[in-house]
């Protein structure tokens, strides 16, 4: 049996994977002592990521391309290069590019904590993770989807623990590894059960099979299968009660990797969840809807309440990102009600999830960018270290304050304000007013810790100039300015993100 493969459709994946391999080979070419090694590796990686993003846009500009289809069935394809896939790929490219720039201090020789981080391996692993993210956006069957999610997360276990001799790093990596492996096997189990019940792995075929065979509802095993798939993916998103790994792992990881975990890795989990829930389990939205609503309410409430008591910077941001995952999932909770399952309401809710996620990753990347600019290769440290930062670094403090306002959803962080508006609007359109009120009240709890942190930046410093990373490396500076400007731009023109999200909701 010969299958024709559409290599144009696969171009973004080829570029991402090719760059990863190229970086790996270049790392072998240069002797460890050569001064240009690190800049060359980073430069090649950045160009490759840029190329991947451009390729994704160009492929999406043409007609929808499909490949790896079942012979004789052009609709059952494992890989579809459509607009949603392109939006996801571009988002991953932007985030990877940002994290690459933020990694410069971590990779610099003589980094203060844990000795040198091997540049070649670090960049290679990050690009492998990107490849997983790009494939994820295009994948349309459960197996490809899970392989993509694993390709996205597997390199991260190593990246978290790459700093030698840092105990927190190792323990974070091990925790993350164990939890992730368990969650993946749980999802796999669920996928296997779904296949056993329906005989389908392609998302659209699964949906058709579930819709056609009402009798499946009577079998408890189907509910178990759906729950197992959801639980496994909830671990990836760090949704409560499957979130416990996140704070320790974030805090143990180098700052840029913590940023990647809370943006790209979380985005991957959300996309996978969306594809499975809305793509494959659509006829069962009445079953998974209430579960998602409960997950969203728990996630945002617990995340916000625990964040109130944090004293370390990265842990605070980790808990805040748990809470933000709750807001991301909230529109999907709208499926719990019949009004939210109407054919015209579903794309609105899905677009709200993608839209919020897009606003959020941009703001979160800005926050981590400012942290890296303030701390250099050091870790996030205790919150008290940031007292009076505004006196030493007024622009960085302003940037960080802007990101915090965005996370809290208040002007001048207009991007965050419109993100909240998108979610509340979609929920009310979907008839889930109660969930909108829960989201709204959570925003108040969230503001309590964001405003505490923001005020600390501007509080008078008791001791002069706490330790800081010294001069800001130029790639970090460029990345911070670019991300902050981008956040300001989408705050002024939110329609840009909304249009992209609406396009991405039609998978």
């Amino acid at each position, binding site marked *: 049996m010969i299958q024709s493969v559409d290599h144009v459709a696969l171009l973004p994946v080829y570029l991402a994977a090719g760059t990863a391999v190229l970086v790996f080979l270049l790392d072998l070419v240069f002797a460890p002592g050569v001064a240009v090694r690190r800049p060359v590796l980073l430069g090649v990686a950045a160009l490759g990521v840029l190329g991947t993003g451009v390729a994704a846009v160009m492929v999406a500009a043409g007609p929808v391309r499909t490949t790896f289809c079942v012979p004789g069935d052009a609709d059952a394809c494992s890989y579809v290069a459509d607009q949603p896939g392109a939006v996801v790929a571009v988002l991953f490219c932007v985030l990877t590019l940002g994290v690459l720039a933020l990694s410069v201090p971590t990779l610099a020789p003589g980094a203060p904590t844990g000795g040198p981080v091997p540049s070649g391996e670090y960049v290679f692993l990050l690009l492998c993770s990107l490849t997983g993210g790009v494939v994820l956006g295009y994948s349309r069957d459960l197996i490809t989807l899970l392989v993509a999610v694993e390709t996205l997360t597997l390199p991260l276990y190593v990246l978290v623990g790459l700093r030698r001799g840092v105990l927190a790093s190792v323990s974070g990596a091990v925790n993350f590894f164990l939890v992730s492996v368990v969650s993946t096997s749980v999802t796999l189990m669920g996928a296997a059960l779904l296949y056993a019940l329906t005989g389908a792995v392609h998302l659209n075929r699964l949906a058709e099979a579930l819709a056609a065979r009402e009798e499946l509802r009577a079998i408890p095993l189907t509910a178990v299968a759906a729950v197992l798939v959801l639980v496994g993916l909830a671990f990836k998103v760090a949704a409560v009660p499957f979130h416990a790994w996140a704070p320790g792992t974030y805090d143990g990881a180098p700052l840029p990797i913590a940023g990647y975990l809370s943006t790209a890795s979380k985005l991957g989990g959300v996309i996978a969840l969306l594809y499975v829930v809305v793509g494959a389990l659509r006829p069962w939205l009445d079953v998974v809807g209430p579960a998602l609503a409960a997950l969203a309410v728990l996630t945002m409430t617990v995340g916000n309440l625990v964040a109130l008591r944090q004293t370390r910077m990265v842990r605070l941001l980790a808990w805040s990102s748990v809470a933000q995952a709750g807001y991301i999932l909230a529109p999907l909770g709208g499926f719990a009600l019949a009004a939210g399952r109407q054919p015209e309401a579903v794309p609105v809710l899905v677009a709200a999830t993608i839209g919020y996620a897009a606003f959020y990753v941009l703001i979160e990347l800005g926050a981590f960018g400012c942290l890296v600019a303030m701390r250099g290769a050091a870790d996030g440290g205790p919150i008290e270290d940031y007292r009076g930062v505004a006196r030493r670094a007024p622009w960085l403090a302003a940037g960080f304050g802007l990101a915090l306002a965005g996370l809290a959803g208040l002007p*001048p962080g207009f991007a965050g304000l419109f993100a909240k508006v998108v979610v509340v609007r979609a929920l009310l359109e979907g008839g889930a*007013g109660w969930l909108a009120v829960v989201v709204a009240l959570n925003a108040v709890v969230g503001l309590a810790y964001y*405003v505490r942190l923001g005020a600390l930046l501007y509080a008078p410093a008791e001791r002069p100039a706490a330790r800081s990373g010294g001069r800001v490396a130029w790639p970090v500076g460029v990345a911070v300015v670019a991300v902050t400007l981008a956040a300001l731009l989408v705050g002024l023109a939110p329609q840009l993100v909304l249009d992209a999200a609406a396009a991405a909701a039609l998978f």
Partner: protein
Amino acid sequence: MTWLLLATLVVPALGAAVVAALPGRLDQVGRILATVVAGLALLASLALYGRPVDPDASGIRPWAEYDVPWASGLDLSFHLGVDGISWPLVVLTTLLTLLCCGYTVWQGPAVTGGKNLLALLLVIEVGIVGVFAALDLVLFFVFFEVTLLPMYAVIAGWGGPDRRHAARKFVLYTLFGSVLLLVGVFTVVSAAGTADLVRLSAGGGEGITRGVQVAAFALLALAFAVKSPLWPLHTWLPDAHTEAPTVGSVILAGVLLKMGTYGLIRVAGVVPTGAQALAPVLGVLAVAAILVGSLVCLAQTELKRLIAYSSVGHMGFVLLGIATLTAAGFQAALIGNIAHGVITGLLFFLAGAIKDRAHTGDLTALGGLRETAPGLAGLLGFAAIASLGLPGLAGFWGEAFAVYAALQLGSLWTVLGVLGAVGGAFTAAYFLRLLRRVTHGPAVDTVAGVVPLRTGELVAWGPLAVLALALGLVPGLVLWLTSDPVEALIQVIS
């Protein structure tokens, strides 16, 4: 006219950016620049005055309009306009901002980082003017949020000893209000299919079921009740006022609170059925606010706190007027809004000046101010008497007509009107007590040798004193502007 409308927002916004970006050593230059900017904004807002283009249409008939789409995916369009209801409030905002800027210039080194304070005040001005001028519900919400963090920063950065706690309380309470506003706004928008206030109020809640209207009005009223503030959601206000710097208190009491009452009047025309259903509840709470506010004031021992609580009572009268949903009630509310802004602005200026001089706001530690600073004591007496509602001064009309409007309706409202009037009598009692404590009697140590009223202060406060008198003698200044739009609104509601 359109460019004037934009200028009232764009000029202070740009001014704030420039002033904030100036280096710290140019502090005084920044303050003067901010004052010039605030002056330009006042001129622009004054020049906005006009008459409706289409006098026969129902609902809102803006004098000037500006409408461009902003984010269609959020039903958000940048739709601005002013009419007889919003214009006086816009002018009050720009006037108070100018006075606060001028006062800060005059204060000189007594205030550190004054240019940053004024940059924040200009941002707050943009937010408040935006709220009053927004003719799109979502835009209204966006501007409502704009004021939040800058006001927090003003209190937390320039406030009294317990400023952090007060600022946090302020920001969390008001965010609680504004998130409910967000939910309420989109409840209306998703039911009506538009966020355009002109179209919404012309329709008068057409196409929105009674249940949705009641839910939407409940959410919106709750949101505005936090802002106004309405008892029992007022507890953030005394702390915020006591700790805020003088100019912060003036803006907060003078115009920020008015965003709540203004919003309530606007949404009453959007979901009239909901408003009618919940009006009695609003009325009862408003009277409770009047009584609680004045009783607390009778026992209050701190100058700024007393004036803050008096705001709770005065805003209670405004809310009572709105709750009647009658033309007389709305007129009372609108003139009450303006009068309270003018008089309480003046009172907070005076309280700040007295606290700065005597280094205490404790009423038991003050006394005999008229012996040492007769000008200051005289102005305080004037403002207090205006505030207690003496006929002939601005405070009278709003309160008298709110009670009158309530009595006209009969049954429950008669009781509410009578209780409101009793609260009004308490108001007289506590203001006279305030005057007796602060200005009369022998001069005590704290006020011995205080600096008398200075020219800079007189220039900053004079316009407010003149306005308090002018509005009292000729209430028509405001009522003439508001009567047509209020009539149009009443047509929609009943």
